[in-house]
Structures are given as structure tokens and as C-alpha cells.
């Protein structure tokens, strides 16, 4: 029976590996392309050799609204604006009530004083699912070699109630740009679930 269990456990491991998302910490991020809010096609390879931050977003999620309005997201965007390529991704499906047109998105994020290179539209959720993006916000950092080095929350304060908080993305980018190892490579993201198409 014990041997059988080990066999089953090994099988479970192999199935888990086979069904793992194709984007993983410590591994090269596969090429992808999406259209941005200005209708331009943006490819990951356009930014080869640069640090890339991906931020999953949905302006109608209260967590996204909070991190923008309180400056938690925008302060990091501004701090690294000339050092990294910041791409914001919206995977909300067009039939969901949170869906907004490119024009409305432009208006909202301009009002929030967001700083990003492009806002990418992923209405079919293909790239969101490739990254296994679960929440808005959900943050990813890709280093200069194209390897995923961070996946998780923007900070350690889901309720927005801590007086002293750790901004994981700020810490990871600072370490990465200083050539130091990133101490925490994965954290549990918090926020609304990504509104993928059913």
C-alpha cells in the first residue's frame, strides 16, 4: 500500500508539473504580444535587455482604486520610470460589468496620474492565464535576461490599514537594480479576482 501511495504521489507530482503555468519564477518568460490602448502592438521582446514590470489591473476593483488613490502604485511607477519598462495589463473580459473601453481607461489612469510605458489589453485573458494572474493588482517582475524574478502583491497591506508597510515591488526592483538577490520572490497577491471570460 505504501509503495502504491508513493507511486500515486509521484503521479500527482508529474501531473502537477505537466499542468503548471508556463510562466514560473526563475524561468524565462515566453514571448507574448498584446495590443495597447492606443492600438499599437507591444511584444515582450521589444524590451529585451530591460527590466520589465507587469501590473494586472482593473480600475473598478476597490483594491486597485485604493493603491492608485493612496499613491502606493504611482509612487513606485514614478520612482522607476526611467529605469524599468512598466506595462499595465487589463484582462477584464468585454462582457463583464467592470470592462471599460480604451478611451475610458486612458481617462481614469490619467486622472490617477499613472506612469506606465503601455497599458495592454488582454480581453481574452490569454496572457493573464499564461502568467496565472489571479488578482488585481497582481505584480510580476522580469529581469534583464528575461527571467521572472518576482510574482505577487504590491505590498503587505491588503486592508490599507498599516502605518508601516513593505512594498515588495519597490524592494525587489531596488535589489534587482543594485545587482543584489531578491529576498522574497513570491508573495500572495491580494485584490479582486481577475475578471476572465467564462
Amino acid at each position, binding site marked *: 500500500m*505504501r509503495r502504491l501511495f508513493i507511486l500515486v504521489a509521484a503521479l500527482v507530482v508529474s501531473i502537477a508539473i505537466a499542468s503548471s503555468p508556463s510562466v514560473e519564477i526563475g524561468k524565462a518568460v515566453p514571448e507574448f504580444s498584446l495590443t495597447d490602448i492606443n492600438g499599437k502592438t507591444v511584444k515582450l521582446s521589444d524590451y529585451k535587455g530591460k527590466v520589465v514590470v507587469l501590473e494586472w489591473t482593473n480600475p473598478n476593483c476597490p483594491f486597485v482604486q485604493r493603491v492608485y488613490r493612496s499613491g502606493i502604485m504611482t509612487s513606485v511607477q514614478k520612482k522607476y520610470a526611467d529605469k524599468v519598462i512598466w506595462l499595465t495589463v487589463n484582462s477584464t473580459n468585454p462582457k463583464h460589468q467592470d470592462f471599460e473601453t480604451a478611451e475610458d481607461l486612458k481617462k481614469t489612469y490619467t486622472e490617477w496620474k499613472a506612469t506606465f510605458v503601455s497599458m495592454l489589453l488582454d480581453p481574452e485573458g490569454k496572457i493573464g492565464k499564461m502568467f496565472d494572474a489571479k488578482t488585481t493588482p497582481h505584480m510580476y517582475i522580469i529581469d534583464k535576461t528575461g527571467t521572472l524574478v518576482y510574482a505577487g502583491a504590491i505590498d503587505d497591506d491588503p486592508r490599507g490599514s498599516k502605518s508601516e508597510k513593505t512594498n515588495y515591488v519597490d524592494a525587489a526592483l531596488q535589489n534587482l537594480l543594485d545587482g543584489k538577490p531578491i529576498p522574497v520572490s513570491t508573495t*500572495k497577491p491580494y485584490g479582486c479576482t481577475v475578471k476572465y471570460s467564462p
Partner: protein
Amino acid sequence: MLWLCLIAVVVAPDLVRAQLVDGKQVVKAEMISDANDFSKPFTVGIRFAIEPGWYLYWRNPGDGGLPIDVQWELPAGWNVSEIQHPTPEKIAHDDLVSYGYKRGVTLLATITPSAESKKGEANVIKAKLDWLVCKESCVRGKAEVELSTQPLPELKRRSAYSLIKAARDRLPRAFHTAGVTIADARVVNSSPHRVVTVRFTGQKVDRITDFFPDALENASIDYKSVKVENGVLSLTVQPNEEGAVVHRLKGLLMAGSTGYECVIPLKVH
């Protein structure tokens, strides 16, 4: 999104605060008790009535969401137990998994008055509440609720008794009553993930249908990977830091809608 206009209102006397979304109250919260004598330890319930279609989150919300937060304000010398959460249900949206409560939930706690408390003495127990309620979209909610320890009207006490009893009936049960035991539990490194497998045995092993995990401190759970088949629980976790080791798994072993609270020590391989 314009229709999502959130307004908080206070309704006396229980400081019931409601969320209005599109003119409808989404969540109404109040503090209830069925106690006669508030000078001895007694049960309080934080009752949330939820509009159909919306849901609140369990102590572990799953992939998204936020657990209900309760911050107590008690009279000096009084103490309160940990919150007891009734067994939630699994709410799946495509590949994303949440654990929560639809229609309504009553969180329970035991309050122990100070040794000097006397029966009939007027005291006020307060709690600040913070929650996220979701349907298609999500809305944050906050409220302050309170309970006076003066004798309650009989009708109100009876109503509280029914709600508290229903909540008690939905509390997770002790693992030893599940009719199963843990035969083997291990975590295997399949870098960058760890795969947890737990084999249960026992007469009632066929009744086990699912597992609702608590969040791990040093690793992130892939909730969509959680499954129970033929008495074997399996799930995948991702350590947060290099070298982080997952030594144990906590959560509810589910037999249909009944949850059994369990802590599973894991052998690391």
C-alpha cells in the same frame, strides 16, 4: 461602474450599517447575543445578512478577496476568544477559487466579563468591522456594531438564539469525528513548486470530497490544484523564499458541506 454608488448608513439602535449598491442594501451587519446573564462568559454573534448573489469571504479568502476583520472594543477587564468561522463554501470562477458565504453568515465569539461584573450591569461591547463583498464586482464595506449588556427583549433573544444555533451547527467539527485518519502526508520538491500529497484511510474515506486550506505563512497555495481523489488530497504550493520549507498544512477536510478542522504535519522529501 457609475451604478456602483456606495453609501453607508447607520440605523439605530444596533448601529446596523448597510451598503447600498444601485439602491439595494448589500450587507447588513449587527451584533447579537442570546445571553440572559452577561456577568458570566457568553456568546456573541456578528451577523451579516447578504443580498442574494453577493458573498463575503472566509478566514482564507482563496485566490482573491479579503477576510472579514473584527476589531473589538470591550469594557476594561473583559476578554474575547478567537472568532469562530462557520464552514464556508467553495466559490469557483473559472480557474480562480474563493471560499466564502452567500446569503448570510454569523461569526461567533465567546466574551468573558471581568470578575467584578454583575448581572444586569450596563456595559457596551463594540466591534469595528471591515469586509469585502463581491458579486460580479466587489465593494469594500465598513461598519461599527455594538451590543448593550442590559437584559434583551425576549423576541430579540430568541431570534439571536436561532441565528447563533444555526452558526454553531455550521462550525467545523473536530477531525477525530471525521471517520478517517492520516496514513501518510508528504511534501515533495518539484522545483519551483512543492507538491503536497496526503493519504487518508478509514471507513468514511469515500465521503471526503475536498479540502479548504488555510493560507501558509511562507508559501502561496495554488488553490485550483487542490483536489481529493480516492482518499488522496493533493495540492501545489510555491515557496515565497528560496529554501522555505512547508512543514504542515491546516484547513478543513470536507465531506460534502461538512468541514472537519485538521492540522496535517508533513514529511519533507
